[in-house]
């Protein structure tokens, strides 16, 4: 479900560009650097000898990824990065590998997806002989290596709630103390955790998630919660004054605060999800893809992506190279990691399909 987030950050970038907040020259430089890549983009990209094909979620993320990762990679290795924005959904990867006609070398999906895909033997193990594990000490897994992070944060309107500062997720469910509608995501990643800590489960004792307990805690409040499906919708619910508090992505929270200082993020107990590079089985560029991955894990490209799309770096070396402005809304900067809950990909890989369906059933009227 990282795909929902990845698509959403591309939408954010497009809006920024339209609003003139992203450097136009940088944007055009990236477009020019694409060269043939732009012309070839529609349809499936085919790997030539000296290139690596990256599949991400399309839209403006194609240009942002080219700027962040393609430029440095070509400068270092002389190889070209071609981006296919078709979206590496689990179903799409499965179909492609099954058909034996694999056209992607590297995919932008999540650590969870990497594990799910590895169970069906659809991804190659990451070659840590080429990819330097030390760059990403915390998120270097067998089939996926963390490329950026994003957080679900507690977010509220200070004016309509009359509350300056929230403490933790207990406030989300305390409708007596703070009346008003809430919003949370209908995709369970990073949602169930917040329900459980609000119910008193210690953050370090969350996994395996007690799904029944979370459902029981949530059920009585369902008529006061609107469930969002995409990032833009979560932002709109706050703008419209439809909700006073919510569990939303940090990228959308940032946009809301920038347009209206009445809003506040409570970083305490945010839930952190890790997106990942993974390699489909039988990728055309073979081992060369790992040179790309290794280059894309450097701090500089990760900071470029943070500035363009808001996605947090996973390479700890990035922290020292950021400006204070970069750090304010970065979910991996120390000021924002107090009480942070790291989502366990292994639990989701094993249980998500089943629990997601039960959750949809629970919230349906």
């Amino acid at each position, binding site marked *: 479900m990282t795909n929902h987030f990845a698509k959403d950050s591309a939408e954010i970038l497009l809006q920024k560009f339209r609003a003139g907040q992203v450097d136009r020259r940088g944007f055009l430089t990236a477009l020019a650097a694409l060269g043939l890549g732009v012309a070839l983009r529609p349809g499936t990209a085919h790997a030539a000898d000296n290139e690596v094909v990256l599949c991400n979620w399309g839209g403006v993320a194609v240009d942002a990824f080219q700027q962040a990762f393609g430029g440095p990679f070509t400068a270092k290795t002389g190889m070209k990065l071609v981006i296919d924005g078709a979206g590496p959904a689990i179903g799409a990867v*499965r179909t492609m590998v099954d058909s034996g006609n694999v056209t992607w070398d590297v995919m932008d999906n999540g650590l969870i997806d990497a594990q799910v895909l590895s169970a069906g033997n659809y991804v190659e193990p990451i070659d840590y002989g080429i990819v330097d594990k030390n760059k990403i000490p915390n998120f270097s897994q067998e089939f996926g290596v963390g490329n950026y992070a994003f957080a679900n944060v507690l977010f509220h309107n200070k004016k309509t709630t009359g509350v300056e500062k929230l403490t933790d997720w207990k406030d989300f469910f305390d409708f007596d103390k703070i009346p008003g509608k809430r919003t949370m995501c209908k995709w369970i990643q990073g949602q169930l955790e917040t329900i459980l800590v609000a119910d008193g489960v210690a953050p370090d004792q969350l996994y395996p998630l007690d799904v029944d307990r979370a459902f029981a805690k949530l059920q009585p409040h369902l008529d006061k919660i609107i469930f969002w*499906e995409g990032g833009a919708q979560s932002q709109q619910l706050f703008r*419209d*004054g*439809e909700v006073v508090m919510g569990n939303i992505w940090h990228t959308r929270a940032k946009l809301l605060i920038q347009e209206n200082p009445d809003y506040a993020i409570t970083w305490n107990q945010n839930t952190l999800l890790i997106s990942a590079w993974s390699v489909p089985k039988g990728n055309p560029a073979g081992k060369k893809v790992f040179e790309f991955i290794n280059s894309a894990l450097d701090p500089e490209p990760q900071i470029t992506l943070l500035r363009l799309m808001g996605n947090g770096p996973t390479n700890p070396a990035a922290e020292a190279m950021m400006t204070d402005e970069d750090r304010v809304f970065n979910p991996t900067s120390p000021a924002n990691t107090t009480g942070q809950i790291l989502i366990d990909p292994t639990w989701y890989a094993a249980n998500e399909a*089943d629990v997601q369906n039960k959750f949809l059933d629970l919230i*349906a009227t």
Partner: protein
Amino acid sequence: MSSRFERFALYLTVPAGLLVILLYALPILQVLALSVTEGSGALANYERLFTSRAVARVVQTTLVVSISTTLITMVIAYVIAFGMIHMDHRQRKLALLMVSIPFWVSVLVRAFAWITILRSQGVLNSGLMSIGAITEPIQLVYNRVGVTIGMVHYMVPFAVLLLYANLTDIDRRVVQAARSLGARPMTVFLRVWLPMSVPGIAVTTIFILVFSLGFLITPALLGGGRTLMIAEYISVQISNTGRWDLATALSAALLIAVGMLLALVFRSPAMRAAFGGSSK
């Protein structure tokens, strides 16, 4: 001469037919095939449709929303279409234009527009509150009410055009005959117009109902995550949870149910007449 021309005309439809087979029939067959090969096999996949409580609820929601959408749409559309056939030429042109304007607006934009109108601080609620008609905002969106409003708005233009086409075909001399025999306007409507438009009503009802069963974006946006209908459920199973067994079995079941519904309807002579099949 005519037979050669007819053959030529037939050949002209071949490319379209091939496209339909290639892009429509084959993928559907693939879905059908997957529904018996995925997961733990055909029996288990289809059995789950009848035993799963979640599926039952999704089906129930879909039926309730679709049937209410159809009923409301039919009443509104009949009134509009009936009005239109009694207009003069210029008025009718204007009315047709008004009816077709919504076709130019994407379903996504319409959903967001409805949110703007219906939300608790939206145009409608603030209007009603400022004139003192209500004191608390009414919940008109992020629930089934909102979904139904959005769907009715989408379906009304289709229904109007279908009903209008049918009503213009009704022989006005029958109406004149009824009047000359002393029937009051209400009697004319109930005993002439209504019975003679039954085929049109039937075709339109089926069309709207079948269309409503497959709504995806409108319920997802206007339902606030709490109105889960079949199309969205299938889409979640395909792209999010990877439960292709459930998704394909449910799609196949929906396809079969709609097919049976159509087959049943087309058995009735009135329906065949409406499509001009056996009326000769």
